[in-house]
């Protein structure tokens, strides 16, 4: 029975990471209708930048974290403003492909600059564990879950009460009317990318701490895509459930059915969702059927 709870714990922790990355997917999709295939790479870039600040510039963890947040906000903002804005109105294919192109570019540049060897990620959370019953909980896992829920709750508050949050919801619901009401849609797009990058960085740092820092970790971030689809691509609220479910499914499948199940389970869930209920659990848009 302990094994089961152990799997549940690691599933929840990984699921929290997926939840944060999926939050990024959702934000960008809801605001501008773009699926950012480079979200995993944004996660990776954030983690590597933080690592570089800590290891090369010898900053403490907390200053490095703050700087990484600032960097990722700027990076996401710049990406949208400089590149994605020109793609407004282009076909879906072009927009998907440009984000895939960026994904490829970032993935390889990070590998070139930082090398492809795996590195451990230094955080103040290393080395301390809790033990409840027979189950070991890493401090990182506990904090990953707490932080993810906290960020999620923060976003719910932000979207409900903050002026900018309301503006983003308005823009997501009806762009033209939002424009008429005086909302600067371009700023909303850029802001959604900035926030997605920042949330991705946090996810990346936790992911690196839960396992290690390596240049293919963006592919692990891509597993958040099943979480976003399960939740419904335009449902920011559903991402909580989507991320946790995928994390749990992956962990339990891997524990009970072995390695292949761990790798394939998220993708099989994705395909199941797409074939049966493409709009996901909480999504709202119509998906075409032939």
């Amino acid at each position, binding site marked *: 029975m302990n094994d089961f709870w152990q799997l549940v714990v690691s599933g929840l922790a990984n699921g929290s990471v997926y939840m944060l990355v999926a939050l990024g997917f959702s934000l960008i999709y809801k605001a501008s209708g773009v*699926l950012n295939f480079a979200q995993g790479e944004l996660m990776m870039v954030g983690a590597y930048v933080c690592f570089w600040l800590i290891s090369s510039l010898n900053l403490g963890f907390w200053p490095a974290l703050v700087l990484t947040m600032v960097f990722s906000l700027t990076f996401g903002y710049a990406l949208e403003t400089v*590149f994605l804005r*020109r*793609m407004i109105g*282009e076909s*879906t*294919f*072009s927009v*998907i*492909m*440009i984000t*895939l*192109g*960026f*994904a*490829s*570019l*970032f*993935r*390889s*540049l990070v*590998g*070139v*600059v930082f090398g*492809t060897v795996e590195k451990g990620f230094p955080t103040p959370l290393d080395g301390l564990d809790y033990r409840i019953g027979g189950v070991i909980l890493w401090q990182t896992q506990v904090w990953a879950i707490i932080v993810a829920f906290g960020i999620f709750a923060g976003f719910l508050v932000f979207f409900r009460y903050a002026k900018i949050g309301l503006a983003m919801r308005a823009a997501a619901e009806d762009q033209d009317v939002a424009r008429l009401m005086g909302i600067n849609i371009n700023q909303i797009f850029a802001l959604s990318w900035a926030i997605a990058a920042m949330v991705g960085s946090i996810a990346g740092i936790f992911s690196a701490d839960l396992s290690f820092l390596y240049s293919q970790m963006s*592919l692990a971030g891509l597993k958040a*895509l*099943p979480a976003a*689809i399960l939740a419904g691509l335009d449902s920011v609220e559903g991402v909580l459930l989507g991320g946790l479910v995928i994390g749990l499914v992956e962990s339990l499948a891997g524990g009970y059915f072995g*390695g*292949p199940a761990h*790798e*394939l389970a998220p*993708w*099989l869930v*994705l*395909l199941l969702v*797409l*074939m049966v209920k*493409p709009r996901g659990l909480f999504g709202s848009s119509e*998906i*075409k*059927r*032939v």
Partner: protein
Amino acid sequence: MSRSGNYHTNYGQEISIFRTPGQKAWLALLVAGLVAFPFLAGNYYIYVVNFALISVIGALGLNLLTGFTGQISLGQAAFLAVGAYATALLSSHFHWPFLVTIFLAALVTMVIGLVIGAPSLRLEGLYLAIATMALYFIVAYIISHWNSLTGGPYGIKVPPLQIMGLKFDNNFKLYFLLLSFVAGSVYFVANLARSRTGRAFVAIRDRDIAAEAMGIDVARYKILAFAVSSFLAGIAGGLYAYLVGVIAPDHFTFEVSIQYIAMIIAGGLGSIEGAILGAFFISLLPEVLRFVTGSLAESFPVFSGNFLLLREAAYGLVIVVFLLLEPAGLYGIWRNLRNSWETFPYKYR
């Protein structure tokens, strides 16, 4: 003086691909150039061009699927992998002749294509891209972990290529073999594009609801598009297996899917000439990159070790740059140049 008016005197003239004497002259020149190339170029360059020829076949298939029919597929690498592995298994276990293994491997790939294409009946655009990506990951995982069948991470060795006793053991002979395969594929795809099926494909891309309303069976033609596209990719994969001699899962990573999409974007979506141009451009890009990083390696040591990663970065950069600056690709650039030349000194006809 450019072509004007319609001077065909029989139906045969009207439906031929090369209509004017000028076009036929250029065609003859192209054929002469292609035949002369291996006599003039060094062995290494023939080797590089052989890979380019194989990717032309794959790019033609993907262009048919994405450029003509509008079905976004990120699973091209899965098709290539299935074609390559099927060929490798059939030739190394059963020792069947080359043409048989290639054909059967392409059939197997077509079946996988139907599986990967099945979501296209329910999904569109973004969701189809995601579904094909998920199916790619599943296929790739199966291939790299089904050790008893596929040799796992170590791959399979492929016997050398021979047709009826004639051994194709150097790049020179392989070039002509590949050239004939490419010529056949281009001929096939060009005629398909001009036929009723091709028109149905384009109609589905442009407005599938209207196509259905006009009586085009959209489901059937979508399946057909995936089938033909994966058949071609299967041939490309099989030829790749014979060319390389040993195939392993790392030859078919997700980056390969992105590479093929870079080919059709850089070449120009929806045109056969574009697919050919794009395939050559992306295949020859690493050579240019090798040259550039080689000469820069002294001043910037970061360039010296990371060739594979830089190549991947280059593919990403090509996609981004072409989509931002010239979405019609190299063929679009060529068409604009040709039009400016033909209409000079006017801006348009």
